[in-house]
């Protein structure tokens, strides 16, 4: 499986993503600079976490218009799986590949901690390593992770079963205290209509090796490799 990681000025999780991908695929991903108009043939495109363009204007807004993104959007629309983590999720909403927007955390604070997530969809390419209802631990590290969409969009996401992960407590319950950033409907990650684009604020690549204190994130990359090899 050939993966590509897009690197923007200000990305800071690109190498973490590359390590997790290499562990799962056995080969290093292509690292593609944002200014490149060419993107190698890829089975998976990853938009990593970080603070692309210093979060100028709005998180992800500038990156969404960088040269390489025109090609990423084209590939995503043609069905190539795209995974956006944290800033990558923000970029995906700014390109409108995913609906909604990530607003400033309700607390106005940058939050860096491990959170519990409930797996809502285990049948997508990204989540087949989990079972529906699993409670997993991923770290979050963001100030703009407060998922917002209008009521119609939220109803559509719920109705089409496109919410992949929700913030929850240790037991899998959705409680206000378990929602770190004020996201509507406890949304931590969503899929596009075809299930080929996933955006999520938490970082699977940061808990993908026992040396990091957990491996819940590794299942996402392993599952992706299995699904793309199938």
């Amino acid at each position, binding site marked *: 499986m050939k993966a590509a990681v897009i690197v923007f000025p200000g990305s800071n999780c690109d190498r973490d993503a590359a390590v997790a991908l290499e562990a799962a695929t056995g080969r290093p991903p292509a690292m593609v600079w944002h200014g490149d108009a060419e993107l190698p043939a890829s089975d998976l495109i990853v938009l990593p976490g970080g603070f692309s363009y210093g979060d100028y204007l709005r998180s992800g807004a500038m990156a969404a218009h960088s040269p390489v993104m025109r090609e990423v959007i084209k590939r995503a629309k043609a069905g190539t799986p795209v995974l956006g983590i944290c800033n990558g999720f923000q970029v995906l909403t700014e390109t409108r590949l995913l609906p909604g927007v990530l*607003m400033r*955390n309700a607390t106005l604070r940058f939050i860096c901690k491990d959170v519990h997530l409930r797996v809502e969809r285990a049948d997508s390419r990204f989540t087949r390593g989990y079972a529906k209802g699993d409670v997993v631990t991923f770290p979050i590290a963001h100030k703009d992770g407060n998922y917002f969409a209008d009521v119609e969009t939220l109803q559509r996401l719920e109705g089409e079963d496109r919410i992949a992960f929700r913030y929850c407590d240790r037991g899998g319950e959705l409680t206000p205290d378990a929602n770190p950033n004020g996201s509507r409907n406890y949304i931590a990650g969503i899929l596009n209509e075809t299930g080929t684009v996933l955006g999520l604020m938490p970082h699977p690549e940061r808990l993908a090796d026992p040396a990091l204190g957990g491996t819940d994130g590794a299942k996402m990359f392993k599952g992706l490799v299995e699904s793309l090899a199938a």
Partner: protein
Amino acid sequence: MKARITITLKPGVLDPQGKAIEGALHALGFGSAGNVRQGKYFEVEVAETDPARARAEVERMCKELLANTIIENYAYELEAA
């Protein structure tokens, strides 16, 4: 021409920064302050002399980049530079 562009949050979109600013105004004794909303302001020089063409350019700038129309409204004024 010169465009003065204002971006504001749509009514109903929660604005935690505006709320915090409102709290700070109250703490300073400005009890009259209410419903504070934070927005953005841009000045852009547009290399167009025809107002209709300049307006069309600014519209596109707002829609494609300056505002996220999911949560924000935009308004602008044009004047001869």
